[in-house]
């Protein structure tokens, strides 16, 4: 077991990427994720890797595009408005089928919004963000340790499917400090990049071309069909979620991700003392969304589901698509950087369940 250290979420993101073999980091400062870049600027040059503060988020994501095309592990990081700026590049990277990791430490929006924690980039992350028929795998850790583990997974998943992977945390997760261990990881069997990476001809005749332009409709449609097949594979293989306190008959099941799910776990303990049986479904991948978790509990959940978010109901539609009208789907959220207290959430649960028992 490696020795535990105390790290700020943002620093741990940097170290996790380094341990995962990230060769290049391109970024631009924005609160609340600036410490990622600060950490990388200190560490990367010391170990002979590349850190570059780009002139903008647009430049940074295009540097990621280039580096990913050469087959190295590469990451960028930003917060909400900065991630909006990256969307064109992300679409190109998905179109060109390149692996990379994108960090979003989310702050309140829309627009410049504010600097306090939020989850209001759920739509942007899971429903496209940029143009075209593409998908990102989106991880939503709830602790600094889980964030470290998922970043290391993210690099593997990106390589396996040749697709950008996003790790999304609310601002709290970037700014808080927790003990963390960088575990020895089993070396995974990953596909070789030798048949596509642009690394020079080395005697080959055929060029490797990194491209997302397909001018002939027949070709572009064929390309899209290939991408869709890949996304279907991801939906089959990469869903991750946690079910907490979900055994037996339930009054209500909370659905929340990220740090909010930790508040929800306290709510569940509080409500148990008042005779209410409340469970939690915590999506760890926001896309692919853990639909099957709902199948496990829908028939034994009396009053249905409650989505608890630091946004205005962005996850509700995915829950409804999973529940398919069989039970009511309710919503409680705070936004703009406000974080709900356990009591507030508990009161909403009691309102739905018609009071304590």
């Amino acid at each position, binding site marked *: 077991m490696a020795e535990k*250290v105390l790290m700020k979420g943002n620093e741990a993101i940097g170290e996790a990427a380094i341990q995962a073999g990230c060769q290049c980091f391109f970024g631009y400062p924005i609160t609340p994720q600036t410490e990622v870049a600060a950490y990388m600027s200190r560490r990367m040059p010391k170990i002979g890797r590349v850190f570059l503060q780009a002139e903008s988020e647009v430049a940074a994501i295009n540097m990621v595009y280039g580096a990913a095309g050469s087959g190295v592990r590469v990451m960028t990081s930003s917060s909400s408005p900065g991630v909006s700026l990256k969307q064109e590049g992300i679409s190109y990277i998905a179109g060109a089928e390149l692996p990379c990791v994108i960090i979003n430490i989310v702050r309140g929006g829309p627009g410049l919004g504010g600097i306090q924690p939020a989850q209001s980039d759920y739509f942007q992350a899971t429903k496209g963000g940029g143009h075209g028929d593409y998908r990102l795998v989106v991880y939503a850790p709830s602790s600094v340790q889980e964030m470290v583990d998922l970043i290391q997974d993210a690099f593997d998943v990106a390589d396996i499917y040749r697709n950008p992977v996003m790790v999304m945390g609310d601002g709290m997760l970037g*700014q*808080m400090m927790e*003990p963390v261990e960088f575990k020895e990881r089993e070396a995974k069997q990953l596909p070789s990049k030798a048949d596509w990476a642009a690394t020079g001809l080395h005697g080959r005749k055929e060029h490797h071309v990194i491209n997302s332009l397909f001018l002939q409709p027949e070709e572009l449609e064929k390309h899209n069909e290939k991408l869709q097949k890949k996304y279907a594979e991801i939906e089959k293989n990469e869903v991750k979620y946690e079910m907490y306190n979900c055994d037996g008959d339930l009054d209500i099941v909370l659905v929340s991700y990220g740090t909010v799910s930790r508040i929800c776990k306290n709510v569940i303990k509080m409500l148990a003392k008042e005779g209410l049986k409340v469970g939690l479904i915590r999506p760890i991948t926001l896309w692919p969304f853990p639909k099957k978790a709902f199948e496990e509990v829908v028939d034994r959940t009396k009053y249905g589901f409650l989505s608890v978010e630091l946004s205005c109901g962005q996850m509700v539609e995915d829950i409804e698509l999973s529940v398919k009208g069989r039970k009511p789907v309710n919503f409680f959220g705070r936004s703009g950087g406000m974080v709900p207290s356990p*009591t507030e959430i508990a009161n909403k649960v009691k309102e739905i369940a018609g009071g304590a028992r």
Partner: protein
Amino acid sequence: MDSRIRVFTGHFGSGKTEIAINYALKLKNEGKKVAIADLDIVNPYFCTRDETKMLEEKGIRVIATSKDFANAELGVIPAETLSIFNDKSYDVVLDVGGDDQGAVALGQYNRYFKEEDYDMYFVINTSRPFTNSVEGILEYIKDIEAASRLKVKYLINNTNLSYETHINHILKGQDIIKEVSKLTKIPIKYVIVMEELIDKLPKEIEGEVFPIKLYMLPPWRRDMV
């Protein structure tokens, strides 16, 4: 004899803010007239200014950037900060942002520090990756002294792993910090410890044992009733 002005510096994330708040409360309990100034221009979350209400209720004067400016990240320090140098009836705690970038905020008060003695503390947590060795700590002391144009007078051992702190972490930190103390001739003034671990500390430990209560907690560790 302690100086009237105490300055808390250290590597970013070393625990300065928790210690500064606890120290201000300790001074208040000793019956002193206390002011705490939040000079942290580095951190957006978990700052002394977030505890203004609690501190003011306890009768401590809080000097901090208003929420409007703090959330706009203007790196503003209120002009009111000057009053702590002029009104000598206050015992003062200065909570400074991390690293040399944070310590820059002290530079503007240089002429006041030349006129009046001060105690500058350097807070160390050896469970933090960049201050886990003697060399790392010495580098940060040098950088922070250069940026602040002040001298560190005392070291504080704040080695911890948050809610997973074991007594061995503190003792291991103490060994490293003792070595720093030997090389720099800067004494260890305090060993910080959570209440529940006090009994486990050896009696002969160098420095005064300073028990603290945590204020910078995430929401799920706050209102559990």
